[in-house]
């Protein structure tokens, strides 16, 4: 069987399209590369969706944490503390079993017992909490003069937030937020090892890497393949976030000689 056939059979196996049975014996390198790559679809799905949705909740939480009224501030603080203070692995387990028992009484929760929605929800809350802490820190370091200047120009509070505070907050938070995005993508590998079942062997990249390592008893092929995929994914995230960072900072004068080090994100340093 050629590698092209393998690609057709297993390229979308992780979302249930293609060959039903996983390869059983005589594992070829091509099979491992294709199947593990197919699993990356899940990692990107979890990472991208929770990151985008978590961004908005994080902004709201960061604002709530700066609020004067304890009715708004305390719940936000508690939320951030719970999700940042406990391991994601335990959160996955707890959420899965929680949804499982809720399902008994309310059929409404049935979709949440699958990794597709349940794990996504946990990741959404988790990344929102971590990003909120980053944004909150950035919000506190927005230069006071900027806000005063906006008020002096007669900006309404809403406009002041949208035009001045929010963009500055993003600009300050962006390097740390890039790190959070990278770690979030790494964390997506936990999903299928934490209670959430991989129905019909539709799993993520690590699930398939682990499958091959178990079957061949040779970890030296599947895990380096997985590592390669993740390094590529990490570089893509860095590239994407770097582009956003340049966009956010486009009004600032660039110091030519500092620029090279400035573009290498903290993660690689």
């Amino acid at each position: 069987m050629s590698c092209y056939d393998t690609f057709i059979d297993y390229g979308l196996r992780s979302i249930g399209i293609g060959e039903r049975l996983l390869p059983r014996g005589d594992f070829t390198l091509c099979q491992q590369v294709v199947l593990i790559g197919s699993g990356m679809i899940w990692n990107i799905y979890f990472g991208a969706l929770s990151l985008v949705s978590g961004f908005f909740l994080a902004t709201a939480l960061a604002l709530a944490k700066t609020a004067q009224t304890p009715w708004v501030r305390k719940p936000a603080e508690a939320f951030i503390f719970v999700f940042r203070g406990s391991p994601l692995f335990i959160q996955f387990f707890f959420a899965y079993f929680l949804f499982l028992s809720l399902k008994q009484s309310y059929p409404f929760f049935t979709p949440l017992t699958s990794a597709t929605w349940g794990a996504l929800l946990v990741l959404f809350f988790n990344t929102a909490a971590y990003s909120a802490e980053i944004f909150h820190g950035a919000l506190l370091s927005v230069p006071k003069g900027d806000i005063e200047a906006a008020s002096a120009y007669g900006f309404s509070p809403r406009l002041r937030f949208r035009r001045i505070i929010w963009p500055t907050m993003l600009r300050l938070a962006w390097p740390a937020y890039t790190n959070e995005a990278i770690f979030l993508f790494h964390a997506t590998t936990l999903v299928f090892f934490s209670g959430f079942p991989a129905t019909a062997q539709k799993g993520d990249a690590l699930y398939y890497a682990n499958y091959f390592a178990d079957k061949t008893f040779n970890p030296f092929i599947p895990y380096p393949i997985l590592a390669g995929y993740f390094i590529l994914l990490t570089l893509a995230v860095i590239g994407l976030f770097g582009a956003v960072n340049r966009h956010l900072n486009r009004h600032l004068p660039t110091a030519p000689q500092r620029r090279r080090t400035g573009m290498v994100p903290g993660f690689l340093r």
Partner: protein
Amino acid sequence: MFASCTDPAALGDLHWLVCYLTTAKHLSFYASFGTVLLLLAVTAPAALALGFAGAVAARSRVLLLSWLGKGYIALVRGVPDIAFFLFFVIALDQGVEYLRHVWLCPDWSEPIRQGSDFRVCPPAKAPLGNAPQWVHEVYGFALAVFTFALVFGAFAANVLFGAMRAVPRAQMETAEAYGMTPRQSFRRILVPQMWVYALPGLSNLWMVLIKATPLLFLLGVEDIVYWARELGGTKTPQFTDYPHGDWRMWYFLFLLVFYLAFTRLSEIVLDRVMARLTKGQATLGGDAQRKAAA
């Protein structure tokens, strides 16, 4: 455990719960919290030592050594830690067995990798096939500790590398002017001064390490996650004196609370350590302390 627990079915609710929570299996569950603390106690200094070695290597003037250090930091940080855990446990196990095989059975002719099998000669097995159960457990735990130290060593190396660069250059120049050798100035000036810069990163790392401990479960160690799944599952009267429904949710809620309390406690302790270290330092924190006292 208690004599009054002989017939659980006849007990009242509260008494039943007391008896239930003190069964032999629950005592193993409580003991596994000790496993987690032991892992932290062993891993933290080991990771710090590895991190120090990695940072020194990355700073080295020898190009090969510097690449080695930087490669170690970049590789481990670029790949999900859980993949490393799953990889290293098998890889280390096979590596140890292979070395013992070469050492103990020099005239073994069969290949080690036969299709999907990894076969070494029987005396090279690690631990030996006839070893008692506790040897297997200790061996598994040691592999886990080594893996944790290797992964978190890279993170620590990154923090220490940054901290070494944060020590003001003038300090090192002064040391040179006094005629100290690079080795002397490193030991007497750089290392004592770098800790205050390293502490925020290291305390952050400690939090991450605490939160990584449940991954022990994936390394085949009978830790708190293992017992929570084991004890919480539905129990029918045929197999136990304490039948109950699916209580895993409550067990994991308990673990969640345990970790929250643990990280909170660490936060408080680390804040105190930081306050002590910044005392009298020429940093923003030290300045704020002086002003608050005045």
